């Protein structure tokens, strides 16, 4: 039997220079903004690229585009349904990235998908495909720190930022390791559970944001369970911003289209702007 490198233990250092996503988010924060990153399921509905443009125009600092996967274990019913419908419409990683190529959203784009799609395509090819489609970053929720090495090498080389997640279950010693490797921002998982709307903001959202802010100056965005403008405002007492997925995708599933999506994102934007106050404030 040949000697095998234990690839699960090899995690390269993150690039020193921030990429397009991180640069934009840091600038937004420095200007006194709270950051807003809506999530749109790629390939769901005829008008999905219109939705990306619309939410960008409505005040998003970046847009997260889901590339649908057959087995989305980190997603709840709403995003599962949109993914399944997109797949049934024939969406593939190639078609979603092709569609994105023609989108000039005016803000950075981050792809959110599951690792197997990139692994299957090949790390280098997947990273190059993202870069060619104008996607600045990748969020792979089933690729934790210990496993991200082989992907990160290819992504770093292609200039694609790898956003890592940090969860409430992480012991204190783990968080500095995660934020050191994460680029773009650090995705704070707001609660124990999968994506989906909740009636109230989980207190764990504030706790994980505070814990992360204590160990990094990377933008800290809370996602999973942030459903309303009020909840976004509440969590931004600690966090630099929010990712909002299911609450937006549910509106798309209900047929609200680009107009409804923009209306909702605009509401969240106004809520956050009211909280952040005048843009003279010093950034964190």
């Amino acid at each position, binding site marked *: *039997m040949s000697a*095998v490198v*234990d*690839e*699960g*233990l090899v995690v390269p250092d993150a690039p020193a220079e921030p990429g397009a996503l991180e640069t934009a988010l840091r600038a937004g924060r420095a200007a006194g903004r709270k950051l807003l990153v809506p999530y749109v399921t790629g390939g769901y509905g005829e008008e999905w690229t219109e939705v990306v443009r619309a939410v960008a125009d409505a005040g998003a600092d970046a847009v997260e585009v889901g590339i649908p*996967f*057959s*087995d*989305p*274990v*980190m997603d*709840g019913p709403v995003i*599962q349904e949109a993914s*399944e419908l997109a*797949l049934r419409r024939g969406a*593939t*990683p*190639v078609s979603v990235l092709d569609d994105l190529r023609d989108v000039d959203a005016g803000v950075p784009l981050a792809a959110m998908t599951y*690792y*197997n*799609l*990139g*692994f*299957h*395509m090949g790390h280098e090819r997947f990273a190059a495909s993202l870069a060619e489609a104008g996607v600045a970053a990748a969020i792979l*929720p*089933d*690729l*934790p*720190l*210990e*496993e991200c090495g082989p992907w990160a090498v290819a992504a770093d080389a292609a200039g694609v930022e790898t956003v*890592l*997640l*940090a*969860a*409430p*279950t*992480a*012991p204190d010693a*783990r968080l500095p390791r*995660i934020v050191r490797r994460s680029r773009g921002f650090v995705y704070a*998982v707001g609660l*124990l*559970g*999968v994506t989906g709307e909740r009636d109230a903001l989980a207190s764990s959202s504030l706790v994980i944001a505070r814990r992360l802010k204590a160990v990094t100056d990377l933008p800290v965005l809370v996602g999973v369970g942030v459903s309303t403008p009020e909840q976004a405002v509440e969590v931004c007492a600690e966090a630099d911003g929010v990712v909002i997925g299911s609450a937006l995708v549910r509106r798309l599933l209900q047929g609200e289209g680009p107009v409804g999506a923009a209306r909702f994102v605009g509401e969240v934007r106004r809520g956050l702007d009211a909280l952040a106050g005048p843009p003279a404030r010093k950034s964190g």
Partner: protein
Amino acid sequence: MALAEPSPSGRFGDFGGRYVPETLVPACQELEDAFREAWSDRGFRTELDDLLRDYAGRPSPLTECHRLSEELGLRLLLKREDLNHTGSHKINNVLGQALLARRMGKTRLVAETGAGQHGVATATAAALLGMECVVYMGEVDMGRQALNVFRMRLLGAEVVPASSGSRTLKDAVNEAMRDWVATVESTHYCLGSVMGPHPYPWMVRELHTVIGDEARAQCASLLDGGVPDVVTACVGGGSNAIGIFSGFADTAAELVGVEPAGGAAVGRGVPGVVHGMKSYLMQDEFGQVQEAQSISAGLDYPGVGPEHSHLAAVGRARYEQVTDAQVIAAFQLLSRTEGIIPALEPAHALAWVSRDRAVLTGRTVLLNLSGRGDKDVAQMMEVLG
């Protein structure tokens, strides 16, 4: 120990690992630590051994099939996991994990199930230890295994339909993982095969080595200290196969896993990552996981445990594929010639032995009869008319 320990990151060669949402990484680490500690603790091992003997009915016998051997022109030995309490090998793993969960202070078990055997075993262990139990089962499987759904409910478990995707075993795994992401502080995910994130493939194997250890000793006594020429078992995730292979990996015995033709993860040989592990995986040209198609709900799984991928890649084991029609014939063959109605899963292994008997002529074949066929009788009544 005949099969090797995985690497520190949980790899068997290139396969395995821990590809889980960040929320679950600490839980997997905690589980690994707890299992290592318990597995080297004499008290824990004694408690488990006592349960396996007094509650599950171990050791399971080794049966020599005289009539069928004659018909096939070879010497067929069956390891009778079908005679365990709850009707399959699944109880070995479940009793170990339930004891471990209790030791870790968990009060709730979640599990996925395909044919229902692992779900029934988990519900049984939960009842025995007074734990809460939720079993996720694909909607399609709930239809074809209604009897096991009733059993689980009788045992006090809640059975939740997995209604996304293909609505079979793979989707039940997704639902169980989503549950665990939300409940990880109180809940242990009692995974039913040698799959999933590290430490499961290794831990579940260790809990099934009892099959191989017993069979090795039983074969030695029957074969004058020898070992069988061939050791075979069906492979979905692959827990019963790993269990029996573990007893013979350091011998000259040929190890043969048998997959359904419609769920041939190893047969197709394309690596992928899903359900926490890197392993061979049935997927389309873009990496979307495909739906397996098999008459047996327990093998209706597009992936396979990572150690099987490794054993295949390095050539220590080989993997054959059989069709549903061959399985149905084998199901009837064993019933008619030996008075043993097998589950459809191990009928796959027998289907291979029967189909390839020409190359097995005169050889001694040990087959792991991983479960009994009671659960499949209603389905087969429809198929056979």
